């Protein structure tokens, strides 16, 4: 029994002639907690899929528990104790907690019949092992995201996992839940299980990982103990260049002394309470807080998706009611959603169609008809001005990279020239190069008089883009900062402060 659980040597992988992984070697020991860090497109997801047998490498060796696998299949990986928990958890919303935990265990044992007592027993034991108590007969769709994750973990543990790989596990968790998760991870470690986190949240990486592995452009660029790294260093290795951090210098607009948007005592039961703030033309206001703080819900309320129950919204001095999306749009509010693939884009439609979807009415003739050449022209303008990299705007938007897709979503909203633009997680899943370009776009929009609200949990992003930041906690406004008067470290500390 070696100390080495998993060893991959010199792994190469191409997809249709494009290199995804180049000469990557990696060792994971028993009971280690590692973090795999990399941008989108760096190859980290490919590496994971090779490790768990979903993809096969073009060349290179894989050793699990000392045994070499020439052609690793998922079932082999599972048998060797490698379990991957994907972001969607692969749970069944319509089945009970007990079933979700125990069913594939029973399946693996080749059972044809269902013994409910066994299932409940197995599930109970699995939950006990990680020290969690959940109602076995509740259906999973009633569970919170954090609980779903715990269910996924206990299911993985049931199959005698030796290596648990978690893909961005803290994305949807509140700080408290993150801590609960870390406690579980530590207890797994004590039981001799290794954990591999895939994460882009640099501060969490440092909080939990013992070793950090950074990949960039398909190669491993760093493999070192976590203690030796700073966030700055990590970012440097991830991107390959010094990330120039700029900040946004807010210049009060000539006519912008009155506020563009003014919110008083805005409340939505169950989401947020008593929020008040101002936004002037040309300002970029950041909104942050841990999950559950109401930051997204606030945006959804301003955009009419989940309207507020009480409070006032005043736009350019006029009180308005925003009860649905149509209202918000009528008041020139735009919203770039967090999940662009399901909420922002029409993947199978052309880039052109995605861009013009809001502004078709501008090119209608007197009969209400439009021509496709007008449509193309309109789209072209935005493709050019936002530097969307594509060979043909008639191609489906699914052919674009994440960064370019996000630009399409932004273009869609810019085309209708909103006065207030809300962006939720504007650079999630976007490579760092595109990230700073998108930031510059946002700054430029503000300089031209738009009022912008950015919701993000990425502290560096907030300090680089916003001139003011609202910190929410449990649905209430906790504190407001002016960026020029604060720095990243203080802001980070403030966030941690909230936990108490």
């Amino acid at each position: 029994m070696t100390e080495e659980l998993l060893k991959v040597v010199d792994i190469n992988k191409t997809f249709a002639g494009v290199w995804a992984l180049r000469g990557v070697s990696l060792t994971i020991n028993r009971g280690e907690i590692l973090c795999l860090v990399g941008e989108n497109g760096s190859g980290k997801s490919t590496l994971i899929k090779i490790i768990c047998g979903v993809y096969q490498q073009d060349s290179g060796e894989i050793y699990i528990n000392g045994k070499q696998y020439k052609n690793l299949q998922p079932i082999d990986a599972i048998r060797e104790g490698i379990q991957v928990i994907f972001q969607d958890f692969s749970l069944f919303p319509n089945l009970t907690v007990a079933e979700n935990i125990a069913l594939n265990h029973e399946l693996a044992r080749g059972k044809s019949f269902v013994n409910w007592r066994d299932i409940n027993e197995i599930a109970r034991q699995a939950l006990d092992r990680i020290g969690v108590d959940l109602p076995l007969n509740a259906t999973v769709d009633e569970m919170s995201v954090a609980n779903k994750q715990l269910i996924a973990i206990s299911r993985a543990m049931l199959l005698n996992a030796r290596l648990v790989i978690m893909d961005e596990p803290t994305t949807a968790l509140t700080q408290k839940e993150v801590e609960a998760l870390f406690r579980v991870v530590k207890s797994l470690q004590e039981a001799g299980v290794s954990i591999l986190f895939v994460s882009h949240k640099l501060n969490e990486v440092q909080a939990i990982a013992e070793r950090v592995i950074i990949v960039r452009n398909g190669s491993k660029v760093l493999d070192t103990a976590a203690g030796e790294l700073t966030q700055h260093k990590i970012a440097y290795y991830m991107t390959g260049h010094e990330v120039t951090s700029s900040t946004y210098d807010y210049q009060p607009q000539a006519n912008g002394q009155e506020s563009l948007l003014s919110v008083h005592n805005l409340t939505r039961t169950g989401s947020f309470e008593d929020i008040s703030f101002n936004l002037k033309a040309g300002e970029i206001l950041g909104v942050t807080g841990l999950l559950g703080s109401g930051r997204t819900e606030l945006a959804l309320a301003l955009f009419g998706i989940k309207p507020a129950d009480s409070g006032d919204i005043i736009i350019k001095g006029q009180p308005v009611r925003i009860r649905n999306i149509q209202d918000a749009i009528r008041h020139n509010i735009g919203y770039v959603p967090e999940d662009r693939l399901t909420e922002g884009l029409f993947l199978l439609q052309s880039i052109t169609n995605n861009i013009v979807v809001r502004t078709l009415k501008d090119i209608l003739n007197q009969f209400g008809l439009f021509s496709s050449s007008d449509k193309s022209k309109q789209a072209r303008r935005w493709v050019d001005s936002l530097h969307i990299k594509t060979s043909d705007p008639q191609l489906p938007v699914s052919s674009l990279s994440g960064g370019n897709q996000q630009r399409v979503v932004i273009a869609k909203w810019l085309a209708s020239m909103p006065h207030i633009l809300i962006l939720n997680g504007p650079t999630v899943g976007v490579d760092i190069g595109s990230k700073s370009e998108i930031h510059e776009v946002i700054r430029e929009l503000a300089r031209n008089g738009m009022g912008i609200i950015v919701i993000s949990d990425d502290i560096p992003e907030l300090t680089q883009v916003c001139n003011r930041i609202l910190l929410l906690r449990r649905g209430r406004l906790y504190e407001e900062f002016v960026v020029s008067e604060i720095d990243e470290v203080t802001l980070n500390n403030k966030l941690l402060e909230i936990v108490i």
Partner: protein
Amino acid sequence: MTRSRVQQQDADTPQETKISPMQFIARAMSSDSTVIRLSVIVVLLFIGFSIARPDAFPTTRNMQSMAFQGSEIGILAIGVGVTMLTGGIDLSITAMANLTAIVAASVLSAIGTDVSPEQAQLAVVVALGAATFVGLLCGMFNGFLVAYVGIPPILATLGTLTLFQGIGTVITEGQAVYGIPEYTFIGTSQIGVVPIPFIIFLVVAGIVGLILSSTRYGFETYMLGTNPVAARFSGINSRRVLMLTYTMSGVLAAIAGAIILGRTNAIRIDFGQSYILLTIMIAVLGGINPMGGSGRVIGVVLAVIAIQFLSTGMNMMLFQSSGANFFKEAAWGMLLLLVLLIDYTTVRYRNRRRLGGSGKTKA
């Protein structure tokens, strides 16, 4: 806030993939390829049957007869097709056609035949107006259930299908409605060589096609069918689009009903009950994606022509027997399955499924 599963997949496919020329052409022509394929099929069918029965098939008389027959189902297929574009389906369209025809017939029969020619013409107008109005109402009811209450379209139109049949049964008391005067001229006459119903069909196809390709509503219909969530978030008024769509279906049903009525002089409630399968099949054949988001009217028109050729041709080949109808039914089934098989193994549909079309629309 969990991220969609697709975003994960997105992460590992290489960025900025080079599109090969073949893929490029395929993508750009994805809907056009259906049109081309259908045109080829139509031409082949025509040639084939003309060779097999040169005395009967390529005659003017036969063309006219086919044009008469194909028009009503063509209009219904367009109606169903439009609802399918939004990712839903309208199972009640044939029942609506039936019901509107019954309404028109009842009005006419109530007015009676003992009237002057001018009054008779007015009666026809009134009857058709009433029928269209009923079609509008029925369509709006469907739209209400789907757009405002939120019942899945399959179930809503299953219910309204039964409901409309029920209303029709009550009105006619299960009997046939006779005595429809003077109106049959629309159904049996023609302008020059071309039968009037066919002209109506082409006009309808033209209008609907134009609406879909060049109006804001049409554009929003395609977008809604592609991704209802993103549509909502982009400010598309989904309720309005759905309402308009199902209402249009109702109006089209009324037009079809008027044509059907024009051909017969008696109408029963179960007339055309089995048509719904055929209309769906024609829509799918015509390139309408049952999961929504793509398909063109021209495809449906070509599909109608193809089916009509096939149907008439087959009739000529196997001598007239009651069995021929049953054979046709079997043939439609076979054809639909074949078309599905072929379509679903082409890139377009595979992509749709991979990128997670809702998949749950069941259609």
